[in-house]
């Protein structure tokens, strides 16, 4: 029996110390997931903590032949989808950051040196991240799992407890929705899409 299974068994008998070790093993993965879902550190920490507390309470129902990490992801995702909470605004890269030496503008020094193409690429990335925050939570979950956590379709099906077919269609709809929102945001701001930039580059060269 591997270490995780032993710790799960001990935690299932109410051993909080064993559960704390499990938390240490999975906290970085779950915190990264909650940060990608919520978009800010305060909400990410709250959600991750709540997910582990919920997991401890539900641990008796966990079949130890299943993967604990997948189960933790499932609990976290379900908690985030089902518990409606007010989201704190995400930190925009344009906003000043408070440091010990007063406010500084993020990326400004580097930005002044960079060619137009790099700036537009960064701007497009920013629109895509913003578009992600505007999607429904169901769509956001599949995109975060797929693109940001690097999960396979099979892993996503296991986390969401649904069929592979459902995962495929959900990812397709989510990507299409994200693309439309990113296109709208870029259009409103007058920023060229990557394809337009390349075409423009081709004409100039």
């Amino acid at each position, binding site marked *: 029996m591997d270490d995780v299974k032993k710790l799960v068994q001990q935690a299932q008998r109410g051993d909080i110390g064993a559960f704390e070790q499990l938390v240490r093993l999975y906290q970085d993965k779950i915190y990264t997931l909650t940060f990608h879902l919520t978009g800010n550190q305060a909400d990410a920490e709250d959600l991750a903590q709540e997910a582990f507390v919920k997991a401890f*309470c539900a641990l008796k129902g966990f079949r130890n032949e299943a993967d604990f990490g997948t189960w933790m992801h499932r609990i976290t995702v379900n908690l985030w989808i089902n518990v409606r909470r007010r989201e704190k605004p995400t930190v925009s890269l344009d906003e000043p950051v408070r440091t010990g030496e007063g406010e500084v503008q993020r990326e400004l020094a580097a930005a002044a040196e960079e060619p137009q193409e790099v700036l537009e690429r960064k701007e497009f990335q920013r629109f895509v991240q913003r578009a992600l925050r505007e999607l429904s939570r169901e769509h956001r979950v599949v995109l975060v799992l797929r693109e940001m956590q690097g999960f396979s379709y099979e892993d996503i099906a296991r986390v969401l407890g649904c069929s592979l077919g459902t995962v495929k269609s959900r990812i397709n709809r989510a990507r299409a929705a994200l693309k439309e929102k990113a296109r709208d945001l870029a259009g409103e701001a007058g920023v060229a899409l990557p394809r337009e930039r390349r075409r423009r580059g081709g004409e100039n060269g």
Partner: protein
Amino acid sequence: MNCPEVRQLCAAYLDGELTPAEAAALDAHLAKCESCAAELELEREVAAALREGAVSLAAPEGFARSVTAALAARQRGRLLLTRGRPPVNARRAGCRSFPARPSPG
């Protein structure tokens, strides 16, 4: 394969999740449909931009301890609630997302 069918399969195509026959049919369509090819390309760019925004984070300092402290606090709350109540309710109360308020009196 027509345009709506192609649009249904874009994500699976980009992720290499189509059968060889489906992928071949989609390739054949893309070779003659500029509009679908452009949409697919944008979708690829958007997915790439999303991946570039991914970070790998470490949980905040003291995180695991804060989880067990929250559990211990809930268990203390549960003990308070067990006074004069059937144990089964108390067990549930200990694991609620938000601690239940003790009933007045």
